[in-house]
């Protein structure tokens, strides 16, 4: 710590700055005069004495600088440098604007992508101590993580000691009467401690109390903030009010806070307690819930997993029929929410990082060109006594200024990019990505921006400093010996261009692979005709349609009404539309084959007779359902090829019987047909064995309608809804989409689409930047070599050989860039292979296309300077010196 007086004196001097300067000048000239006098006294001639004294005294300017430096504050020179940098930029606004623009785009896009990755992956989940929250589920032979049955959940909750609380949630939905009709609203059923376990407190009203989820309890509901705002006008008196869901009165006990999100049931608007066991929950073998546990202090997730496995093993012995092979999985809740987002976020982050790198390198090479034209200025400063450190500091200051200006402009770009990207995500998808509402410029983003700005600054500062450290002051002043400086420049600039080109290759290859993956994904074999297919979901209020006969009558009426619409070719009804999920499964046993209680898990779909023909699924053997099969009591079943191959290898399955594990007579079904594999699960999921049962034998409150149209399937969607409401205005409809829309909005398609779209853009920008960079280098080197080219031509070189000389240089750079780029691209693609679908990381056509595209673009860019070189007039060229 400097004493106070010291600081005060320093400020005093700072204020009387001019006086200090004149004092010093006078003092030094006095000193010099004295030395001069001394020399004359010794007998030197006055003229010689004058020079000698000046020589002895040294560089007065430098001396003054140094004495001045003694009293000056360090930041004063920084301000000097900054002022000088600003003057430099003002002198050459084109350069400054271009540089800031390129940096702003590079950094802005990077920061925006980081903001998404931050919200999706890095930020902790918005719960109390989120890292102590575990996802608790069962696992079976086919599914790594499967739902929990209510009976198992209750046993797990009772028996475990690892969790301070173990809660359950499951999907649900209600028909809500609104002014415009009946609307199905997604909801969730939760155990009473669900919100307490998450650490979420209602914004209004109260949480569910312990015991309020028991069978026979009162019907209560908690509203999400969004639903409270949208459906109930943000009324503060909602708590205690009664709302009608599915024709039953529910009392609103609370409203959840605005920040509340729960990704596994992201679109739920109402949360109700579990209450009575539904049909599924009465069976231990029916799995429809998931668990959430909060670890007790000191318990690790590993210990919890071991305990839950032990409990599951105990239940396996106790209930062999339902629980054989059912284990337990315990993993951090964040893993199931954040985990699926990781590959795409990392890929996009890496791609945006590469874009930033290419942008910075581009600006660095711009700076390099400029430092070349500033050689004289630098040399003059050096000759006047500026130390190399001081000159370097000037470059650091300029780089810093560019970095900071770029960074500030980048915030605008980042904001725009984030808003743009958010609106690009379709609403149907956005509601399942609650992290989107957390995307923004927070302190994480600020730190990230500063880090990348500093890195870019470092690169920008290092380039001209490295370049100029080779510079000899005398050489530069005389502006001679061009070839030497030229070689250094060429080497440095060329290296930068190779870096740019190889990054462009990586991004282009990435873009190519992702585009191909997306194309492959959308063209994956569906097993049905996805064109001219419209779909809608119909929900019937349970009170009015409680009996199977009523439900069947309704389904037939829906079928009849829609069939009679103009332009409709055929209509089919099903429990689940294709391309959804491997879910709603059944455990089967083949009658007459050895069976040891294993769970043979297959997809189960209930379909109307016309459903499979409407999809244009391929009948391989046997026959499809008729109206008789759907109404008669005898069980008939259609299986897909996968099931036939897996459970009837080398046999004809027609006429064979399939039943449940205990051979319950009611479950006996005869195989009547085999159809080609219809893609029931997501586009990139594995194909599962599937059984199709007669819908009219096990109807329900909800049915999906598939409509084959002759013309435009989009135009028919409003007519479908109208037709359904004409049957009964109390019916709810949702999911009115064409099959192609369904495909485009599946999670896998969206992830692939977003990745492809963004990386394509990054690659396009990278290509432009790299090619412009190459053009700059080649054009500059042609400019430097004008005289040499003139000499060559004067000595008889043909224009064609001048062309080839320039193009050869460009060719080498491109080849090096493409070579390094392709090798790195394959490595990068292997790292990101999770995002590839049906395409290898070393896909030859993609690599070849990228190489050709880049080579063509590069050669086109260097043709211009080559042409200029070849048109050099030797006489003029020789005169340029």
């Amino acid at each position, binding site marked *: 710590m400097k004493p106070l*007086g*010291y600081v005060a*004196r*320093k400020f005093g*001097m700072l204020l009387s700055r001019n006086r200090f300067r004149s*004092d*010093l000048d*006078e*003092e*030094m000239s*006095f*000193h010099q*005069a*004295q*030395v001069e006098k001394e020399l004359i006294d010794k007998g030197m001639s006055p003229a010689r004495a004058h020079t000698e004294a000046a020589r*002895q*005294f*040294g560089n007065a300017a*430098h*001396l003054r600088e*140094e*004495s001045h*430096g*003694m*009293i000056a504050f360090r930041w004063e020179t920084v301000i000097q440098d900054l002022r000088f940098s600003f003057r430099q930029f003002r002198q050459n606004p084109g350069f400054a604007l271009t540089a800031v623009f390129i940096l702003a785009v590079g950094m802005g896009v990077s920061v925006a992508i980081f903001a998404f990755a931050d919200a999706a992956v890095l930020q902790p989940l918005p719960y109390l101590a989120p890292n102590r929250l575990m996802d608790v589920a069962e696992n079976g032979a086919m599914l790594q993580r499967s739902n929990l049955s209510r009976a198992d959940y209750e046993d797990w909750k009772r028996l475990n000691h690892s969790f301070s609380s173990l809660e359950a949630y499951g999907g649900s939905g209600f028909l809500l009467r609104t002014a415009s009709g009946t609307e199905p609203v997604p909801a969730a059923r939760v155990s009473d401690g669900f919100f307490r376990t998450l650490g979420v407190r209602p914004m209004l009203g109260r949480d569910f109390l312990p015991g309020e989820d028991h069978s026979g309890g009162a019907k209560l509901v908690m509203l999400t903030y969004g639903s409270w705002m949208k459906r109930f006008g943000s009324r503060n008196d909602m708590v205690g009010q009664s709302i009608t869901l599915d024709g039953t009165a529910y009392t609103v006990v609370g409203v959840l806070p605005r920040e509340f999100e729960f990704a596994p049931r992201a679109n739920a608007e109402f949360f109700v307690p579990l209450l009575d066991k539904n049909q599924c929950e009465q069976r231990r073998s029916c799995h429809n819930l998931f668990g959430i546990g909060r670890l007790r202090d000191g318990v690790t997730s590993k210990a919890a997993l071991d305990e839950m496995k032990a409990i599951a093993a105990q239940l396996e012995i106790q209930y062999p029929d339902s629980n054989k092979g059912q284990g337990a999985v315990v993993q951090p809740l964040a893993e199931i929410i954040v985990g699926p987002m990781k590959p795409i976020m990392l890929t996009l982050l890496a791609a945006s990082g590469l874009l930033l790198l290419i942008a910075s390198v581009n600006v660095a090479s711009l700076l390099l060109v400029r430092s070349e034209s500033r050689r004289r200025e630098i040399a003059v400063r050096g000759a006047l006594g500026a130390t190399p450190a001081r000159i370097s500091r000037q470059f650091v200051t300029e780089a810093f200024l560019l970095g900071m200006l770029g960074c500030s402009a980048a915030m605008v770009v980042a904001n725009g990019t984030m808003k743009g990207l958010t609106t690009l995500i379709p609403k149907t998808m956005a509601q399942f990505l609650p992290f989107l509402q957390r995307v923004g410029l927070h302190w994480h983003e600020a730190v990230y921006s500063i880090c990348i700005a500093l890195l870019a600054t470092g690169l920008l500062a290092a380039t001209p400093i490295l370049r100029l450290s080779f510079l000899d002051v005398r050489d530069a002043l005389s502006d001679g010996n061009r070839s030497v400086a030229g070689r250094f420049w060429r080497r440095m600039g060329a290296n930068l261009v190779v870096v740019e080109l190889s990054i462009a290759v990586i991004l282009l290859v990435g873009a190519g692979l992702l585009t191909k993956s997306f194309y492959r994904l959308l063209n994956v074999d569906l097993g049905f005709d996805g064109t001219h297919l419209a779909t809608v979901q119909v929900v019937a209020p349970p009170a009015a349609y409680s009996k199977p006969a009523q439900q069947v009558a309704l389904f037939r009426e829906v079928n009849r009404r829609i069939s009679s619409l103009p332009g409709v070719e055929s209509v089919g009804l099903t429990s689940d539309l294709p391309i959804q999920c491997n879910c709603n499964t059944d455990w089967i046993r083949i009658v007459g084959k050895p069976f040891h209680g294993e769970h043979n898990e297959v997809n189960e779909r209930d379909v109307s007779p016309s459903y499979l023909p409407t999809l244009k699924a391929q009948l391989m053997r046997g026959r499809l359902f008729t109206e008789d099969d759907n109404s008669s009591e005898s069980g008939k079943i259609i299986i897909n090829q996968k099931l036939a191959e897996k459970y009837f290898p080398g046999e004809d399955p027609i006429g064979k019987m399939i039943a449940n594990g205990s051979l319950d007579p009611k479950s006996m079904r005869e195989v009547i047909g085999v159809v080609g594999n219809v893609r029931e699960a997501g586009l990139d999921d594995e194909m599962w064995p599937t059984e199709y049962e007669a819908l009219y034998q096990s109807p329900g409150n909800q049915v999906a309608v598939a409509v084959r149209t002759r013309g435009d399937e989009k135009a028919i969607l409003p007519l479908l809804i109208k037709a359904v409401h004409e049957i009964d205005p109390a019916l709810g409809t949702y999911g009115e989409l064409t099959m192609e829309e369904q495909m485009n909005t599946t999670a896998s398609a969206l992830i692939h689409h977003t990745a492809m779209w963004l990386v394509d853009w990054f690659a396009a920008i990278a290509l432009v930047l790299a090619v412009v960079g190459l053009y700059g280098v080649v054009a500059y080197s042609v400019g430097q070599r004008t005289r040499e080219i003139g000499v060559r031509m004067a000595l008889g070189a043909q224009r064609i050989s001048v062309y080839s000389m320039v193009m050869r240089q460009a060719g080498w750079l491109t080849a090096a860039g493409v070579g390094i780029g392709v090798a790195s691209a394959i490595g990068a693609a292997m790292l990101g292979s999770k995002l590839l679908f049906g395409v290898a990381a070393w896909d030859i056509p993609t690599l070849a296309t990228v190489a050709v595209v880049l080579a063509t673009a590069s050669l086109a860019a260097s043709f211009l300077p080559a042409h200029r070189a070849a048109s050099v007039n030797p006489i003029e060229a020789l005169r340029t010196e």
Partner: protein
Amino acid sequence: MKRPELLPGTLDMLILKTLNRAPLHGYGIALAIKRLSDDVLTVEEGSLYPALQRLLLQGWVKAEWKMTETNRRARFYTLTAAGRKQLGLEVTQFEQMIAAIGRVLSEA
């Protein structure tokens, strides 16, 4: 012959010491050091003036413009009380160090 360099860190002490006898201007200080050291020590102007600024800043010397005997205006530096204290301190430290170095050298 190459003149021996001033020991690092001793310049401030030498300046303070010359000023301890009488106020001097910059040239006078350089001259005094040179004479008193029998031409062994030469103070470069390049280090003298920055050093003087440093001492001014520390408050160890004061500067004022006066007339020389040849009737020229010159800036005279005077030792302050703090400067005298500092001089004592530096001399003690220096002597301790020299003694220590001497002991090491005589050991051989």
